[in-house]
């Protein structure tokens, strides 16, 4: 029967693909165990000491550097152009890298996708939830949902702010940023129903002058807590401190920048993932294609409370962390956007894909995404 043949062929193909997928991580494991071992190539989009996104990765990378037989080679300030593809290929061809970690969003499509197909023996992992079944089996993603820590920021800010007016300096109106803004609002409103978040978009990831202008404008508008989602939060935090208002951090710890006004900050905990990778490499286990997480699996954290946090804010924030660890949802009930449309009508799990496409600011956020 022709149909039967067809199915069998399909089955064989699938089986072969499965075997190939299984064999890839094995060869990686073999490399890791053999003498000479595994070289891991890491690329960053900015400087490794930017007080932000890149620093959060670079600091966590020490975990991998500590694994016996593993050599880590790093390249910073690699742009999201074909230059990143060439950097990765250079690591593969000239350094013999067997695992590539790309830490910036724009590295994946099309560059890491293409390279994963071109170098099937090399394993690729990328720090954004972009991998899908259609992508090569030797590629993969890892990501932390930072909005959970921003929610905690909002709780602490809501109880540390005398006016309840929080200012937010944001880079671009894209889902991950909007999710953080909305989470700050929901956190603040959970303890102070009148709290508002006023947002200013700077238009790009690293715009220090505009970030300072935006921070000053928000303070002038009456905000007494500032937070942000830009690559390097240093400018916003320092401006807040200089203007005598409180602040919440983003990406990495900015506590040393604001000894008087720092409340807490949303931090990635990439070391959890890198530690997991390191353990798997040491035992020869294949790396999973997708790892995502938040508070429930120790992949985000809040910076140790600073002088700006009131005792009741600390208590409420600790309670919020406990609730998030237990899986309590942030986006729940009936919520409207700030144009009056109902955008949330039920409780969404904190990892629900529906939330990944967020394209609105909730009611209570002052600002516009257009």
């Amino acid at each position, binding site marked *: 029967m022709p149909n039967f043949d067809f199915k069998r062929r399909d089955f064989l193909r699938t089986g072969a693909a499965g075997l190939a997928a299984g064999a890839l991580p094995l060869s990686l494991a073999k490399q890791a165990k053999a003498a000479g071992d595994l070289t891991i190539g890491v690329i960053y989009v900015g400087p490794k000491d930017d007080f932000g996104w890149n620093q959060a990765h670079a600091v966590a990378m020490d975990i991998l550097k500590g694994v016996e037989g593993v050599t880590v080679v790093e390249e910073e300030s690699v742009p999201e152009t074909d230059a990143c593809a*060439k950097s990765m290929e250079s*690591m593969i061809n000239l350094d013999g890298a067997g695992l590539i970690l790309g830490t910036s969003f724009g590295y994946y499509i099309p560059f890491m996708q293409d390279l994963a197909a071109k170098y099937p023996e090399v394993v690729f992992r990328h720090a954004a939830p972009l991998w899908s079944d259609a992508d090569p089996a030797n590629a993969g993603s890892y990501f932390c949902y930072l909005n959970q820590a921003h929610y905690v920021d909002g709780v602490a800010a809501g109880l540390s702010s005398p006016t309840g007016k929080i200012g937010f300096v944001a880079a671009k109106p894209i*889902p991950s940023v909007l999710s953080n803004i909305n989470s700050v609002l929901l956190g603040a409103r959970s303890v102070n129903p009148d709290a508002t978040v006023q947002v200013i978009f700077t238009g790009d990831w690293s715009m220090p002058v505009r970030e300072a202008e935006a921070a000053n404008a928000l303070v002038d508008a009456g905000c007494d807590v500032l937070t942000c989602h830009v690559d390097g939060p240093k400018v916003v935090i320092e401006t807040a401190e200089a203007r005598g208002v409180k602040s919440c951090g983003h990406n990495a710890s900015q506590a040393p920048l604001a000894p008087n006004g720092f409340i807490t900050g949303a931090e990635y905990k990439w070391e959890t993932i890198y530690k997991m990778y390191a353990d798997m490499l040491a035992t020869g286990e294949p790396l999973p294609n997708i790892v995502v997480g938040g508070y429930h699996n120790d992949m985000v954290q809040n910076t140790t409370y600073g002088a700006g946090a009131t005792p009741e804010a600390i208590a409420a924030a600790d309670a919020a962390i406990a609730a998030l660890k237990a899986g309590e949802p942030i986006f729940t009930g009936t919520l409207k956007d700030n144009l009056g449309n109902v955008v949330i009508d039920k409780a969404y799990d904190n990892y629900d894909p529906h939330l990944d496409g967020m394209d609105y600011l909730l009611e209570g956020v002052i600002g516009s995404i257009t």
Partner: protein
Amino acid sequence: MDAEASPPKPQRAFGAETLRSVEALVVPVGSVLASALLFSVFLLVLGKDPVQFFQLLWKGGFGTSFSIQNTLQRSAPIILTGLAFAVPATIGLTMIGAEGPLVIGGFAAAAAAIPLVTIGAPTSVLLALMAAAAMAAGALLIMLVGWLRHARSVNETISSLLLTYIAIATMNFFVEGALRDPSSQNKPSTLPIGKDNMIGSIPGTDVHWGLAAGVILAVLIGLLLRRTTFGFAARVTGGNPHAALAQGLPVGGLILACTAISGAVAGLAGFFEVAAIHGQANASLVAGYGFTGILVSFLARHNPFVVVPIAIIFGAIDASGGLIQRRMDLPDATSALLQGLIFITLLASETLLGRFRMFQPVEAR
């Protein structure tokens, strides 16, 4: 010495022209060596090994076939942006905004592709129209600068730089708004033209066709500027616009033509970024190639033929930068520092031209 008193009589084996070419080669090469020496001092101060540095520079730039392709790929866009600076420089305009036409050209190409991809136009038609849109958009932008210079006496350096920001903002406005592909959630981009529609590599290599386009255009533009009456008129205008006007040369037309060529070439660089690399327009188009082109053109002394080898040297420095970071634990700014040193010593060396007795014809000594 008075030439009339003693009519030139070649008394040496080399004529004046040969000596001048030798000088034009020895002085820049010497200054590059001087910058390498200065840079070695810098490395020694940091406690790093200069020999290892230059070995890695060679290995990463030219040492393996992968390295050579890496170098050529990186030099492709800066050949084009180098030419985009060299052409207006010939007519005396310091146009520092090739980044603007590159970005707006790339954006125009991606925008033109949207309806064509939607109706399923054949690849050749699609690419031709994209290239045309890119060149037209780039040309219009830089012609505006030329027109402002000629008709309104607006400084072209300032206006071209400011228009760069307007070009980038215009692209961002559309890419993050009306022309955004809804599936590009966290990195706003236009609709991808699709893998099948993209320009492939030059056969047998990993290098896209932008390199070939750059080399061909360098030759064509070189011939145009050095071997035609148009080029002669442009150079006269560059030398002295008032004299050119007095001679009845169409200065305004020449300026518009040169700025159009400049913008079109930079726009073409943007087209290749979209059609060969990204497949769509997004913020990654703003990669600084336009500004690197300024260095390339200056080092080539605005000679289109020389732009190609200089761009390849810059491509090699870029290509080896990562290897140097990784192996020597040097910050990424190291390559930029080397490029800057080469630039400064070469510019400084220009003042040495004509100062060495050994390069002067005997009768002029």
